[in-house]
């Protein structure tokens, strides 16, 4: 990148927060996505919305691309600059601006870490449900841009269900406000949902207003052991069919259990095929009933052991252990390729079978865990990037898994976004007209194509 351009960036955010040395660029050339790296030309860390606007205007005029970045935990290559442009990180934009207890909303800057918002609102007996596995690191801006889901998605939905208002700086530096604190709003096109899950390609969020709900009064955390994988899957479908909606219904297979246990030592069983982590929350009387129903169903589907957490610590440990699933899997082999195949919930059992078959056919190790209640599975292939043949086989296995997922009426990504990683699958899913409409929208927001190019399509 031209030194004169870097100088101009420096005049906006200062030297300390404009990085262009080789070493810094190298560490902003990756995110949590395996196998993908791409060096930016510079990294800037703005401190205000005004900074963001000035930087975008500058880059827009110069035709330099800008890629937003939160904590870089996304799994689709979304925060990497593909053409050596500017990466703009939000970590200094990290203030919780307001918790409005009358309107039940919170307004934050994009760099606020998800769990920090949880702590803040829960201290006031309020609740912000979206809780991605990465919530201790991921930022609210990243969550909105990826429409992140979480362990509580089954009952409470995903980030999109909570975003009420956005302050977005457009590619040319102009400010766009959409939505706000009003619960009902049908004026014009709904731009909020469009911006949510736009993966940094339509605008740069500088303010986010989310909906809060009262904190559930009680919670029961349970763990069911299944000696046979398919039984666990059938139990998931049966729980949903029984009209019990747990807050959390997470699935871990044998490979995952072993790794998580190795790391977290929470007493997971090592001799079963799968476990379900189930949480029901709400009014104490209701959850007692729901917990009993869940236990009943798990027993019917031959669970070998059913455990109810005795206290908050135990419950917290179990849930926290689940959050480490992905990273814990990486203990086995250096390169973990995680996928995000999602199917209608009734198809969980056949999908798990397909995954197992694909693993066997291509001779790769796949550990699977996921938000079973949402039909969102994370088959994770454990490979070694130094073994090119193995990597090739892993990708072949995934191609097959995705074909089946689409055929079942599912999707190629339930929560991680398309980014660079899933680009090639998107046309298969949305068709030509889908891509055409999306391109048109992009054109309307960002005619010069400077915002996070190379992503989605």
């Amino acid at each position, binding site marked *: 990148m031209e030194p004169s351009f870097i100088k101009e960036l420096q005049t906006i955010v200062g030297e300390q927060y404009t990085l262009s040395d080789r*070493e810094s660029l190298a560490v902003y050339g990756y995110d949590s996505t395996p196998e993908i790296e791409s060096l930016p030309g510079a990294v800037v860390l703005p401190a205000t919305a005004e900074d963001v606007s000035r930087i975008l205007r500058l880059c827009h005029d110069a035709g330099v691309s800008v890629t937003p970045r939160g904590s870089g*935990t996304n799994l689709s290559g979304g925060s990497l600059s593909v053409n050596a442009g500017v990466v703009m990180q939000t970590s200094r934009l990290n203030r919780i601006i307001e918790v409005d207890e009358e309107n039940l909303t919170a307004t934050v800057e994009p760099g606020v870490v998800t769990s920090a918002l949880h702590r803040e609102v829960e201290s006031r007996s309020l609740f912000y449900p979206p809780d991605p596995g990465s919530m201790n*690191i991921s930022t609210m801006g990243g969550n909105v841009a990826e429409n992140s889901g979480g362990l509580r998605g089954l009952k409470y939905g995903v980030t999109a269900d909570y975003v009420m208002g956005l302050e977005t700086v457009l590619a040319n530096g102009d400010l766009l406000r959409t939505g706000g604190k009003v619960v009902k709003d049908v004026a014009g096109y709904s731009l909020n949902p469009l911006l949510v899950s736009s993966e940094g390609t339509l605008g740069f969020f500088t303010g986010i207003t989310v909906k809060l709900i009262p904190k559930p009064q009680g919670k029961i955390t349970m763990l069911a052991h299944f000696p046979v994988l398919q039984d666990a899957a059938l139990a998931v479908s049966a729980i949903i069919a029984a009209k019990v909606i747990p807050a959390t219904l997470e699935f871990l297979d044998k490979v995952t259990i072993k790794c998580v246990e190795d790391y977290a030592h929470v007493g997971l069983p090592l001799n079963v095929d799968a476990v379900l982590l189930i949480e029901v929350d709400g009014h104490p009387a209701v959850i007692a009933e729901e917990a009993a129903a869940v236990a009943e169903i798990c027993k019917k589907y031959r669970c070998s052991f059913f455990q109810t957490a005795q206290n908050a610590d135990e419950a917290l440990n179990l849930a926290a252990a689940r959050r480490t699933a992905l*990273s*814990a899997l990486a*203990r086995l082999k250096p*390169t973990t390729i995680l996928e995000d195949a999602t199917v209608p919930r009734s198809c969980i059992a056949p999908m798990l079978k397909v995954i197992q078959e694909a693993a066997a056919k291509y001779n790769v190790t796949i550990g699977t865990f996921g938000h079973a209640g949402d039909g969102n599975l994370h088959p994770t292939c454990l490979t070694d990037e130094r073994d090119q043949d193995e990597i090739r086989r892993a990708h072949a296995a995934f191609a097959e898994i995705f074909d089946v997922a689409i055929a079942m009426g599912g999707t190629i990504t339930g929560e991680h976004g398309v980014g660079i990683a899933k680009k090639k699958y998107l046309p298969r899913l949305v068709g030509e007209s889908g891509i055409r409409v999306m391109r048109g929208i992009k054109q309307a927001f960002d005619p010069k194509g400077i915002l996070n190019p190379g992503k989605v399509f």
Partner: protein
Amino acid sequence: MDYVKLINCMRCGMCLPACPTYKETFLETASPRGRVALVRKLQEGELDQSERLLEYLSLCLDCQACASACPCGVNAGELVAEFTCERKGEAGLGFMENLILRKLVPHPDRLEASMAPMRVYQRSGLQKLVRRLGVLKMFPKPLERMEGLLPALPSRPLRQTIQEVTPARGTERGTVGFFLGCVMSLIFSEASRATIQLLSLLGYRVITPRDQVCCGAPNMLGGDLEGLKEAARTNVELFGGFDVDYIVTDCGGCGAELKKYGHHLDGDAAAEFSGKVRDISQILALHAGELRQLLKPLGRRVTYHDPCHIAHCQGIRQEPRQLLKLIPGLDYRELNEADACCGSAGTYNIQRPEMADKVLQRKVDNIRRTGADCLVTANPGCLIQLKKALAADAQPVRVAHITELLLESFMVK
């Protein structure tokens, strides 16, 4: 360096919120994930050993909070330390390093003698004068900081005054070897005296071999792997000569290093030595029941700071808290971010004062917020750093080693 350890990092970022330098800078270069990447890219030839790269790496406190946070078992801090050690080793020891690491540290007598002028300096009133006149401003910065940090020294190091064998009180239940540790003996001799007394009270015969040498941790920092092994050999051989059930230390840093002797040296003797090493809180926690009978009320508001070398390197978190809660009448208050580094980190607070001060300030704020009037910890580096920081304000918070407070509770009339 083991390449596999580097590629095991899957860049999930789970370590980011644990890292004190990331929390202060928000920069990927100052995060565990970034540090692993820098070392890896260096190994792969994508980056070279530039001044800037070394500068980035040197900002790591080696607090190993990242290791506790990493579900993949990667230890960024240790990888950086290993890399730095290798690099320094290749460059060869400089004159000063050689002097300090080979001629001074391994020889307790000389080390103790070297502190003598400081003691005279403190006692003679010269210190007060010097501080008042700001004479030190004329000397290099690190010296000034070092002078400012040092608490009042005891009149003689513990090693010179303690008997080699302290008998058990009452019925003897076993024998332990006590590992003195340089800084504990030189500066916090009273705390170590309390450690020995508690052990004796619980029925242990305590052997404190006078010929023991420094654990070797400074050698590792200085890139002197040979010196470290030499220290390890000496200590293993020496303690091997006594028939002890445990080797006890009240210095977190020494404990962490002693537990690694089995890796540093081949042979069963070193592994056996490491297998016997216990932090004092581990031993005391074994006897919680008896201690409960012995301890008398202390009306204090107390909080506990986890030294990195105890929490992250040795995985000891419960025992110290359990012990403090045994003291009747004590109002225990948990510290926010209790296991975050205090910024002392060996000689880091002297070499990287700016970052060290930021990390320290965060710790101090957290401590103040508990409203405690006494902070307990268990590592000399933390004691030095926090004593200085917490004495300064209008409302001084007492800083004590855990054995000091326990003994105090025992001594209450």
